């Protein structure tokens, strides 16, 4: 009896506390932000936290559309295509009360363009930035840059006065041996103020009283507690026990467990990330195969046979438990240049693939080594295990070498792999970004992630031309043209588009951001 009473008292107590704390959201994901300095790391988890505190000139909303943030209007200037001009929002305050104006924007851009900044690559086309009155801002580019706005959506604006007063004008680097003020403190114009932060442990944010966007955004959440929880099982347990309300990365094997809980729900959406395999098709001989003096991957028929041998539906159903979208092209579906036709999944046809292997002179097959990460993409190692079996069916004996990401990715950038898995997200939502890194010949400026050894001077010239082509129709035609070559040459073997799974309390109402960037100002509470 006594036990019963105390249990019901507890239930009442619990109910009342959860009611009182209705505007707080406890948020967890696997990794923490690396730094509060918004220009020091161009990395997803770091940007996600920064988006609550700092703001860029333009922002992508939760559906991926570019909308105004600190700039209200923007466009290339009429008389000079090399100049982009921005009209800045008036009456915006920083968290410490300082006013926002064009000086802050110039300062922030110049800060982000210094060698220590990790954002500088996105701004590499900029020649100079300048103010144009208190609320006007201009970017002068080295040549016309038609897609400038999509490079600016993660470029956060700091207060010049605050940075100077706290000696944090320089971006955090690794030379000095001292931490900069901005790596631990924050002063943005964003909807939430940093209250406290213990790295890898807990970050507290509260709503900013003087936020310019009041009335424009839901802003239902007034307090955010952010905790990284590394262990997937613990993360799910914390969600199930109600200690956490929102988890950005629910492992696929636990989705049904979370979804079946009446207090919780899982929402899903395709992510801006495609998973594919790369092949060394440029070298005369491979070091990891058993064919002497020849490179079997150099033969387009072998690559076509391999594309046909992958059963993408089986991977989706068995390995991913339905949580992936089979892909026919190494490009996420949000990107400019994506078409349904390109993304048509090639049917798995073992007989045809075998015939093509025989035609190429590899009827008896060959062996090769596939390098795979085991802690980077969803079920990455399991996908590789599955394709090993599929390639065996057409006579290719694949030795799987799965390693942590810190060891896997250097093999791609140092060209010490002939066959590898890679995933690619496109923050600019434009094909040029993919071409620059994955298709252009590997060199100092472009092609840093192209380990396929593919090199085509004609294609390289077309890729370079995209940067300054202002006629969008012509530009899109070139993009389609390049994709045709990429597909015909089977530059990459696409596998699937990843799906994001956000687990959350029933009370939270949001859509999934394709870049996995939760922006809490858009969140509603029921």
């Amino acid at each position: 009896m006594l036990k019963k009473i105390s249990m019901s008292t507890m239930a009442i107590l619990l109910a009342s506390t959860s009611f009182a704390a209705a505007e707080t959201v406890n948020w967890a994901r696997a990794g923490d932000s690396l730094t509060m300095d918004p220009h020091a790391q161009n990395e997803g988890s770091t940007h996600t936290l920064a988006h609550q505190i700092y703001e860029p000139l333009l922002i992508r909303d939760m559906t991926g559309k570019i909308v105004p943030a600190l700039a209200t209007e923007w466009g290339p200037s009429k008389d000079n295509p090399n100049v982009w001009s921005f009209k800045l929002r008036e009456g915006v305050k920083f968290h410490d009360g300082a006013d926002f104006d064009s000086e802050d924007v110039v300062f922030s851009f110049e800060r982000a363009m210094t060698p220590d900044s990790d954002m500088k690559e996105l701004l590499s086309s900029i020649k100079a930035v300048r103010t144009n009155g208190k609320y006007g801002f201009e970017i002068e580019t080295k040549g016309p840059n038609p897609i400038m706005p999509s490079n600016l959506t993660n470029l956060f604006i700091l207060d010049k006065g605050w940075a100077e007063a706290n000696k944090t004008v320089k971006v955090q680097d690794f030379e000095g041996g001292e931490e900069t003020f901005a790596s631990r403190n924050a002063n943005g114009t964003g909807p939430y103020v940093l209250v406290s932060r213990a790295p890898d442990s807990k970050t507290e944010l509260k709503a900013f009283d003087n936020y310019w966007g009041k009335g424009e955004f839901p802003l239902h959440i007034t307090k955010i507690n952010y905790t990284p929880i590394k262990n997937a099982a613990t993360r799910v347990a914390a969600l199930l026990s109600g200690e956490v309300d929102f988890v950005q990365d629910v492992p696929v094997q636990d989705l049904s467990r979370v979804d079946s809980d009446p207090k919780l729900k899982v929402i899903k959406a395709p992510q801006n990330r495609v998973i594919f395999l790369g092949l060394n098709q440029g070298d005369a001989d491979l070091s990891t195969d058993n064919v002497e003096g020849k490179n079997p991957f150099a033969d387009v028929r072998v690559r076509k046979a391999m594309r046909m041998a992958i059963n993408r539906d089986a991977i989706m159903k068995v390995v991913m438990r339905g949580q992936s979208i089979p892909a026919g092209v190494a490009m996420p579906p949000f990107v400019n240049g994506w078409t349904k036709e390109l993304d048509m999944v090639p049917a798995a046809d073992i007989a045809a693939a075998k015939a093509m292997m025989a035609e190429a002179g590899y009827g008896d097959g060959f062996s090769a080594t596939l390098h795979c990460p085991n802690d980077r993409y969803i079920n990455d190692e399991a996908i590789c295990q599955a394709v090993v079996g599929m390639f065996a069916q057409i006579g290719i004996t694949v030795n799987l070498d799965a390693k942590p990401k810190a060891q896997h990715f250097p093999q791609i950038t140092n060209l010490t792999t002939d066959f590898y898995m890679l995933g690619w997200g496109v923050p600019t939502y434009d094909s040029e970004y993919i071409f620059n890194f994955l298709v252009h010949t590997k060199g100092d400026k472009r092609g840093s992630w192209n380990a396929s050894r593919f090199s085509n001077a004609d294609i390289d010239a077309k890729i370079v031309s995209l940067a300054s082509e202002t006629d969008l129709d012509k530009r899109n035609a070139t993009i389609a043209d390049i994709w045709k070559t990429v597909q015909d040459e089977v530059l990459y073997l696409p596998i699937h588009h990843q799906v994001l799974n956000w687990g959350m309390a029933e009370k939270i109402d949001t859509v999934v951001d394709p870049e996995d960037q939760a922006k809490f100002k858009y969140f509603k509470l029921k």
Partner: protein
Amino acid sequence: MISYIIKRAMQSVVVLLAVGLVAFGMFRFVGDPIDNMLGQERTDADVERLRELLGLNDPFIVQYWDFLTGAIQGDMGVSFRQGRPALDIILERLPATLELATVSAVFAMVMGILLGIYTAINRKGFVTTTILTTSLIGVSLPTFLIGILLIYIFAVELGWLPSFGRGDVVDFGWWTTGLTSWGGIKSLILPAITLGLYQMTLIMRLVRSEMSEILRQDYIRFARARGLTEKTINFRHAVKNTLIPVITVAGLQIGSIIAFSIITETVFQWPGVGLLFIDSVQFVDIPVMASYLMLISVMFVGINFIVDMLYLAIDPRLRDGKEG
């Protein structure tokens, strides 16, 4: 005697240097830190610039030398992951680990000794059998599984205890503690049990066998003949003699509690040095990994040095300088 102390001290320094050398030799197999430090948009020129800046192109002996010369001046380098001095990060995380290790050591000692005595005195019976059987789980299940099981039962199903983190923590600047609030103590219970379970089982089994042995000794029989109560015999005579080997073993186990905390901290997202180490390995944060390994080896070498000095105090034969 002085020469013995100097000799031991020199040996300790050599051990430390060797640990550091092996660690630095292994770092090159952990992976390339540049990959995590620069975003997807880096160019090959950026990679080369940062590699040169961090001295990653140098042979590992040179890197090790740079680390040592820095370490002697109190500069353990800057974390690649957080961009802050590695030593600051470790010192900030250390209280969480030490608090967890201390609580689990106390838990293991107290529970181990109590249960050991109980099962030694009551050699048969349902309770004893149950304790012994369940204690087998403690030694045979891996730590992470015990942690997950405890989370499932006490956090998810019963909802009594938190599943992760340290709860409310009070910061004194040089030390942080969760022991001052109920929330902090609640957060400590599951990780402390997970971490201490193996040691508890070990101590319990040791106490039980030692005490069973002692209860068969002649002086216990004489004590009984003298008409002393069972309570006096068990607790005044038997237990005292049981504890000598137990304390030796328990001392040795403290080191492994701190070492095992890596797994427990990962399961419970406990913000200590163990979790920091795992994060650093994944990121290839060489300065933090090196500092952590040096810290742990200093600790182990220090404990061993003290033990050696205690032997010296206890064993007169070592004092003549003829230890060989």
